[in-house]
């Protein structure tokens, strides 16, 4: 099956990579003590792994070529899609999941519950960005800016005026939406790749302002002692409040899923997808491009803003370091890995990407490396994500709608 030719090819690739990575992987100079460290074992390691990976790469490439002919889906996916399609199984599964989620704080420790809450925040962010990138096809690389707007809205309003979480949550959502529209108005007529860069620039501007405008944002040291969310003024211990925030987050995530799901198959949601698929045809079908994009952008921002307020309330401390470009990139890789437009995919991807580094400590150093590689590999081999979005189907009998 594996020919000499292929082995030769892989050998060449492997030697190429050994040479390519030589200075950076092998040599390390300690400029202070003036010692050169030669790490030859890295070269060996690269050689071996590239040799085998190149087989895998070629195999996957071949498979991709084959799959181009429609209707040769792989079976694992079709099973998942079948589940998604069959409402009965779906409802059953989601009931089990919800039950598990409800009992979770009693099964796991506080520490773990806290981590899961974190993951839930990313689910929310992922689903929000999914509206913008996955459904409407607008590559927003500054999503974290809206997250920051939400977080700082709550932190500052709480710090200066002592406002509580519940009264600020809608304010944070509104402010983020406002920023979304403010940015969206001028930039949404730009082409896709320019939009990406402008949003990236905007995200960085917001972060740099937060970092440097000490009088406003308290600079790099951030804001501490932010109040946790309250519940009718009941005093809560740290543990109870962790559990409380967990349930709160769960509720909000379920609400998010509900909203995104409804939007997806609505008139507006279809317009977003059409816009993603073909802007010119979409306009020719009578859809107002700017308005449609703006709705998606503002709605995505709203969600980021809410997530930001929750984040601030949960950690009780924020500073600009939480809102770097890498954060945007991480949320984006959640959407990319999960599958553009796919709710279930995004949920699974956030759990994978947030929990794996937490539980596999060895992983956590390599986390950003893996995110980066994931984005490339997904785009090359599986641009539709782990669980591709399923479109709703309709049944008709003698032109009567049954859904």
């Amino acid at each position, binding site marked *: 099956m594996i020919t000499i030719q292929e082995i030769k090819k892989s050998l060449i690739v492997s030697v190429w990579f050994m040479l390519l990575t030589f200075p950076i992987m092998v040599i390390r100079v300690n400029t202070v003590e003036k010692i050169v460290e030669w790490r030859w074992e890295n070269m060996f390691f690269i050689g071996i792994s590239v040799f085998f990976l190149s087989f895998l790469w070629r195999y996957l490439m071949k498979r991709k070529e084959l799959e181009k002919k429609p209707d040769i889906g792989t079976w694992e996916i079709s099973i998942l899609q079948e589940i998604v399609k069959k409402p009965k199984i779906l409802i059953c599964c989601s009931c089990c999941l919800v039950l598990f989620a409800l009992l979770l704080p009693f099964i796991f420790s506080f520490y773990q519950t806290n981590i899961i809450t974190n993951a839930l925040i990313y689910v929310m962010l992922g689903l929000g960005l999914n509206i913008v990138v996955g459904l409407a096809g607008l590559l927003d690389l500054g999503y974290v800016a809206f997250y920051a707007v939400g977080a700082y809205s709550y932190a500052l309003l709480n710090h200066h005026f002592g406002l509580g979480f519940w009264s600020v949550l809608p304010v944070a959502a509104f402010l983020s939406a406002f920023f979304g529209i403010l940015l969206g108005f001028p930039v949404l007529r730009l082409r896709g790749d320019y939009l990406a860069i402008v949003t990236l620039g905007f995200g960085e501007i917001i972060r740099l302002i937060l970092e440097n405008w000490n009088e406003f944002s308290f600079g790099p040291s951030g804001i501490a002692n932010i109040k946790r969310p309250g519940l009718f003024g009941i005093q809560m211990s740290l543990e109870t409040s962790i559990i409380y925030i967990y349930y709160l987050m769960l509720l909000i995530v379920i609400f998010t899923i509900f909203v995104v799901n409804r939007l997806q198959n609505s008139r*507006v949601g279809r317009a977003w997808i*059409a816009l993603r*698929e073909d802007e010119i045809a*979409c306009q020719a079908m*009578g859809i107002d*491009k700017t308005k449609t994009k703006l709705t998606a952008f503002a709605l995505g921002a709203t969600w980021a803003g809410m997530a930001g307020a929750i984040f601030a309330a949960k950690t009780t401390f924020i500073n600009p370091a939480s809102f770097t470009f890498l954060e945007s990139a991480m949320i984006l890789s959640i959407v990319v890995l999960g599958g553009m437009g796919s709710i279930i995919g995004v949920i699974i991807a956030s759990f994978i990407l947030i929990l794996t580094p937490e539980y596999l400590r060895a992983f956590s150093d390599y986390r950003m490396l893996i995110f980066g590689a994931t984005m490339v590999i997904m785009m090359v081999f599986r641009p539709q994500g782990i669980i591709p*979005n399923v479109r709703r189907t*309709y049944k008709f009998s003698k*032109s009567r*709608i049954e859904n």
Partner: protein
Amino acid sequence: MNIALEVKKMTMDFGGLRAIDNLDLDVKHGEIVALIGPNGAGKTTFFNCITGVYRPTRGDILIYPPDREQLRINGLKSNNVTEKGMARTFQNIRLFPNMTVLENVMIGRHCRTKSGVFSAIFRSRKTIHEENDIVEKSYNILEKIGIERFVNEFAKNLPYGVQRKLEIARALATDPFILLLDEPAAGMNPIEIKELDELIKKIRKQEKLSILLIEHHMSLVMNLSDRIFVMDYGRKIAQGTPDEIKSNKDVIKAYLGEDSDA
């Protein structure tokens, strides 16, 4: 018959290239008009100009919707043009590949419906009603075009001929009073072309709309059209009934090349 679309002295320049030169054209209500000409004559550019994809350099475009005032539509965005009742298809098919056939048609209903983000979330009775209406209307159009058996397929998986028909279905869903078809028969086999011929006639009759079509298949053009406009190098070189066009010297010259006087 009253005029439905009137284009007056339209010119379109791309940098130094004059793609359309002082062109006049009109379509009457209920009429099928063909726009023909050799490759690169500027036919598609003409469509793009009158549907707001490009902004013409000079000229006037007027439409006369049946139950409304006449309208000058120069400089309108293409979504507004569609909203005013002029819909089109594309020469190089531009469907929404990852949406189902039905959804493609449902997009066409967008500009005739209203519900927004909030009604989508709360899904009031009115919204549900509107949504059902969209589905029903779209399905009916699919039936009319004869592609309802593909209803839940992804558009990207359709055979070529069906994709062309879906483009027509999608345009029809916007309730146009004038329909612009850019080479609807391109890439179709003779049987499909025959079907298309009947389909276009049926559409005109049932929907009471005017059709302006660009086409290279002469038999289809001669068979369908009431009048024909011929373009070459951006200029109108002839207009008239199919019989007049068939015997027009300039037309023959344009198609066969300058030096074939024979």
